[in-house]
């Protein structure tokens, strides 16, 4: 019995040491700033995760090429969240406790960010996420002001929905929300903005995940004769709902967030069902110089245009803003760096679009980083306000029609 326990311990120790060897992307050395890249490389976020991780690496390389931040080279430790909160928490623990990273960058999906944020708060380090849930803005998730969001909140998505619904001349909107923070955040945001415009919502439903049918939910919504149905949903449930709606034969238009109304949805349902759906997504800051640089790096790393992955542009900005804040603070003491986050990213200051440019400008005064994903101007909750695009599904293709600013 003793022998097996010893073997077990040795095996466990070996297994625990393994990621230490493989996780570090740069050679380990003294005087580096350790940063964790925590991205959804596999699972539902898989289409985005690899690009997100590579853009953290690319942005860190750019920082190191410019001589590092506050004299320190950046060293990235990468882990996969598997788009699963439990796996994400384990990976975050490992990055924080074993690798002793000073910030975690690039968590995707609200469930994961909400699961990881208590760990980063306890460790007194920053978490930069690409999630939408409103709960991430306020205590307890953001009680220490250490959480930064580079994606629009679900609330802002809701405001964009309201702008688009008004522009398209809809009068009788109804809402359907997936029962979680993100889904309800979308439709509540829409409701607030729509009612502020003097509009009225004719019917609303919050539905349970993982149902075999949403026909009864649809019956209630369609009974109110809405001209547009605004969704807070994901691609799986949206597929079932749209299929069952189409079978009823009752006409309606749809406004659906971009992560649900994507090419997968079109492929699953065929062009007839999805014709005319309005897909709303946040868009990168495509006219900016920083975007051009990001696009070049993304092409080099992934062989695809940077517009393929809005989240990768966000992680590029995360790394760059963080490095600029470190440079401005002149130290890697994260409490001091955190104080500089708003300063380097928000207005009043020389507009800069890269780390090298910002490092130079910091010698003479304050700076305002204009990023690839947005002009990351943090509000008091550490949230940014990107622009939104309204895209219409036409003949099975998702075509962007116009940009909405909120």
């Amino acid at each position, binding site marked *: 019995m003793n022998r097996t326990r010893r073997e077990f311990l040795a095996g466990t120790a070996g297994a625990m040491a393994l990621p230490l060897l493989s996780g570090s992307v740069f050679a380990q050395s003294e005087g580096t700033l350790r940063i964790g890249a925590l991205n959804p490389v*596999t*699972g*539902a976020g*898989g289409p985005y995760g690899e690009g997100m991780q590579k853009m953290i690496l690319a942005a860190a390389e750019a920082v190191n090429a410019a001589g590092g931040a506050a004299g320190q080279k950046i060293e990235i430790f990468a882990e996969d969240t598997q*788009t699963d909160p439990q796996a994400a928490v384990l990976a975050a623990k490992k990055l924080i406790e074993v690798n002793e990273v000073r910030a975690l960058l690039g968590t995707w999906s609200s469930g994961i960010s909400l699961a990881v944020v208590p760990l980063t708060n306890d460790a007194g380090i920053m978490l930069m996420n690409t999630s939408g849930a409103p709960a991430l803005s306020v205590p307890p998730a953001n009680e220490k002001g250490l959480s930064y969001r580079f994606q629009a909140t679900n609330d802002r998505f809701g405001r964009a929905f309201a702008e688009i619904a008004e522009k398209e001349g809809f009068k009788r909107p109804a809402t359907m929300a997936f*029962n979680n923070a993100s889904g309800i955040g979308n439709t509540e945001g829409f409701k607030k903005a729509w009612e502020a415009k003097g509009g009225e919502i004719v019917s609303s*439903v*919050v*539905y*349970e995940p*993982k*149902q*075999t*049918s949403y*026909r*009864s*939910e649809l*019956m*209630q919504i369609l009974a109110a004769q809405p001209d547009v149905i605004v969704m807070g949903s994901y*691609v*799986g449930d949206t*597929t*079932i709902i749209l*299929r069952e709606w*189409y*079978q*009823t*034969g009752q006409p309606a238009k749809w406004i659906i967030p971009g992560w649900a109304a994507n090419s*997968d949805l079109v492929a*699953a*349902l*065929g062009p*007839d*069902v999805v014709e005319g759906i309005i897909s709303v997504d946040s868009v990168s800051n495509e006219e900016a110089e920083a975007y051009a640089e990001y696009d070049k790096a993304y092409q080099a790393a992934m062989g695809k245009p940077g517009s393929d992955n809005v989240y990768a542009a966000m992680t590029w900005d995360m790394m760059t803003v963080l490095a600029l804040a470190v440079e401005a603070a002149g130290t890697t003491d994260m409490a001091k760096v955190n104080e500089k986050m708003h300063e380097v990213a928000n207005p009043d200051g020389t507009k800069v679009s890269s780390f090298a440019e910002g490092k130079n400008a910091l010698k003479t005064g304050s700076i305002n980083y204009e990023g690839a994903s947005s002009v990351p101007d943090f509000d008091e909750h550490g949230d940014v306000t990107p622009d939104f695009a309204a895209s219409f599904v036409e003949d099975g293709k998702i075509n962007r029609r116009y940009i909405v600013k909120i």
Partner: protein
Amino acid sequence: MYFAQLAVNGLVQGLVISLAAMSITLVFGIVRFPNAATGDVMTVGAFSGLIVYPLTGSLLLSGVFAVAVAAAVALASHLLVFRRLAGRSVVALLVASIGVGFVLRSIMGLAFGHQPMVFSMPLSRPYRLGGLAINPLDLQLALLALVMLVLAFAILHLTPIGRQMRAVADNPALARVSGIRSGRVMAALWVLAGAIVGAGGVMLGVKTVVGPEMGWDMLMPAFAAAIFGGIGSPAGALLAGFILGVAQEMSTPFVGFTYKIALSFAIMLIVLLKRPSGLLGRIEGVR
């Protein structure tokens, strides 16, 4: 009319629950453990159907193939795992079945990925019967399920192997003394349990989206229906699935969509308080 429509919606959902519950109850009745891999065998059925459907365009052929594959997988799980654990405690078998389910789910996740997939069927408008909307696809699916159910009950009640199964379920010791060979009975049982749930998998896949987690997510309502119907009673499981499905939908005007699942469980609780053996179950004697 609104309520009638809700009931129709519930019936189709109930059918899927019923099939999974029947499989659970069959296994429980004879091998005497709750098989937590049932949902994942269901997923195997859905993916098998998904492979065949684009090649043939026939729902029937996909169903037959799914039933065959799911039956084979269930039989393999018996031969490779559960048979070897025969005689162990219920907990050991339950944990083993969770493990089997986990392996199946992981294999499907690796093979097919986690993006939701669909049976790309031509969508059709519903038939209108005096204000009731009935979907032609639902009718086809119900027919498929009905065929499966009739076959299952026929096997259970009209064939020698079915009689032997029921004998083992009633009293394993007496069955052995009477010369029933449990090896054959067990194999037949697993094939039947797998086949039933395979058909359920195709139904669920056609109605919803196919993903590695879909069957696992169905496990709770299926277990509930199996218990509600009286554990070990296939007819009870069938009835309970229907009642749960219909009660869920009919309750929505009163409790809303968020709590309909809770309500169906409340109904189950009340019935079990009044009838601890379930709808059609019998109280087991002390062995």
